């Protein structure tokens, strides 16, 4: 039997606490209340609540500080602020300090219960991500740890091949001490004398003999990386970042949406999904590319498409008369894709515009934002959350991502530049 989920409500108004208790009475929760911040923090430390409601304006310890201390004590805590002073700036400030959402007073029972539902879903997601991150870190500690996390380890290029006119894959000899990676993680690849770039690991996580990266030539560093040849030496730091929530997705429908180069960071997840196919319910792989010549991994796509237990669809932006598949952006595949939106997990990668529209379609189908995950890549320079180049609000894309739940990513999408 599952333990009851614990909810803590911190508010100085007894009437608010009483009404919250009444509204939660019909649910199977263990609800605790506190009338000030100090008592709330003490109770939080004692009971480890799954969800905390914090009033922003209380005598004594201010709600904002309570939020920060909750977050500092437990990075997986999920807090929702409630206040009668609902302003956008307050909401933004609360989010920056780690609040998951914002509930303005007065609120209806339905609004409160919906917030509880979303908050508890978020808690599950956060715990799963924390667990998967711990597994990823255990699987692959920094190979350069002895020399410091910024020291790249030399690796030899075992092979190089063109995927498309602007994209190349490199197979690397795994560095000494390499203990594998989790799908969704990335390495910092260093072209000696030129610079570093964050590149997703794009190979099969079960293949320990080589480390694959697919690189799109978009600048000086990636062009230099893509021009390496067999036998050349490259610097590698990693693996970094959060993995795809493949454990959380077990037993559910999984909808993978890849646009353009976005298939590269998803390919390890697809490999793992297919290798453990019986762990998942329906598996849908929706792939979009500009033209057939821009389609990554066409032979593997054919292989995946040939499986009876995968629904794989490819669509192109533009095609000539010889193309027998679909034409249109990848988002057009979502409305009629067959999956159970009530329980499905979505994993989306592509340029941000594509991810936003794909997410909108998945949410329109009824998928919860807490079960929708995207991978963001923004200005990652150090890979370990030190340099701040990829900081968005309170998050570092390299350290806290690159895989994010859409609840978090949606806010980050609003930040135009970092």
């Amino acid at each position: 039997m599952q333990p009851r989920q614990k909810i803590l409500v911190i508010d100085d108004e007894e009437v608010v606490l009483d009404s919250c208790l009444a509204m939660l009475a019909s649910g199977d929760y263990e609800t605790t209340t506190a009338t000030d911040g100090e008592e709330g923090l003490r109770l939080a430390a004692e009971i480890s609540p799954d969800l905390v409601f914090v009033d922003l304006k209380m005598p004594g310890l201010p709600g904002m500080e309570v939020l920060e201390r909750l977050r500092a004590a437990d990075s997986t805590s999920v807090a929702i602020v409630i206040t009668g002073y609902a302003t956008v700036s307050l909401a933004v400030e609360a989010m920056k300090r780690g609040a998951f959402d914002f509930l303005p007073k007065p609120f209806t029972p339905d609004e409160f219960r919906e917030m509880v539902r979303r908050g508890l879903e978020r808690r599950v997601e956060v715990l799963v991500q924390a667990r998967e991150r711990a597994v990823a870190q255990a699987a692959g500690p920094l190979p350069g740890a002895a020399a410091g996390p910024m020291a790249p380890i030399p690796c030899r290029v075992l092979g190089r091949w063109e995927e498309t006119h602007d994209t190349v894959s490199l197979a690397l000899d795994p560095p000494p001490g390499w203990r594998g990676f989790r799908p969704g993680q990335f390495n910092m690849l260093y072209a000696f004398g030129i610079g570093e770039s964050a590149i997703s690991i794009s190979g099969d996580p079960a293949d320990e003999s080589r480390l694959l990266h697919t690189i799109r030539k978009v600048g000086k560093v990636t062009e230099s990386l893509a021009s390496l040849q067999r036998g050349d030496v490259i610097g590698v730091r990693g693996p970094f970042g959060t993995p795809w929530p493949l454990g959380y997705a077990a037993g559910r429908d999984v909808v993978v949406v890849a646009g353009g180069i976005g298939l590269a960071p998803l390919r390890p997840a697809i490999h793992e999904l297919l290798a453990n196919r019986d762990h998942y319910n329906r598996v849908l792989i929706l792939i979009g590319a500009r033209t057939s010549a821009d389609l990554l991994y066409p032979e593997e796509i054919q292989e995946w498409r040939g499986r009876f237990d995968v629904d794989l669809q490819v669509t192109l932006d533009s095609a000539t008369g010889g193309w027998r598949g679909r034409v249109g952006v990848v988002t057009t595949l979502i409305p009629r894709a067959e999956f159970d939106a009530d329980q499905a997990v979505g994993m989306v990668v592509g340029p941000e515009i594509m991810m936003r529209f794909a997410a909108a379609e998945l949410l329109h189908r009824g998928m919860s934002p807490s079960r929708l995950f995207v991978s963001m890549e923004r200005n990652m320079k150090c890979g370990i959350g030190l340099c701040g180049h990829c900081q968005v609000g309170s998050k570092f894309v390299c350290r806290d991502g690159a895989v994010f739940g859409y609840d978090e990513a949606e806010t980050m999408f609003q930040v135009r530049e970092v």
Partner: protein
Amino acid sequence: MAGQDQNSPPVAELLAAHPFVVGMEEAQVRRVAECVSRVEQFSTDQVIFRSGGVARILYLLRRGDVALEVPAPGSGSRIVGTLHAGDALGWSWLFPPYRWAFDARAMGPTEALIIEGEKLREYASADHELGYQVVWRVAREMADRLQATRLQMLDVYGERP
């Protein structure tokens, strides 16, 4: 070769199962069914209509895939979009000058309910409730395709090198 499958269920049944009429009242579906002249099958690569031709028909696709194409000298044709089972093909029959804007070609064995556009226009003019239902569906189709086209124009998979 085009033709009607003699073993198909009555067209009214086929129509009632098509997403285009989902949400319409029964009487409205019956009126639309009066405009269905036949079920037509198209073989792979068969041209369903050509750009510039007179648009008289709304095709409700039951099976198969259809490419909307623009002839491109030197490279045959460019596909601008594809439609699939459950989609409604063609809205040029609804608006003057009633001419198709693109070529439509069956990408594989395809089957469609053929709805006589002129008759449906007449019914829609006489019964504005029905007219609203029809135009709303066409508008939704147009909105979906407009959004998809905008995304295609944005080249969402990244800049060209």
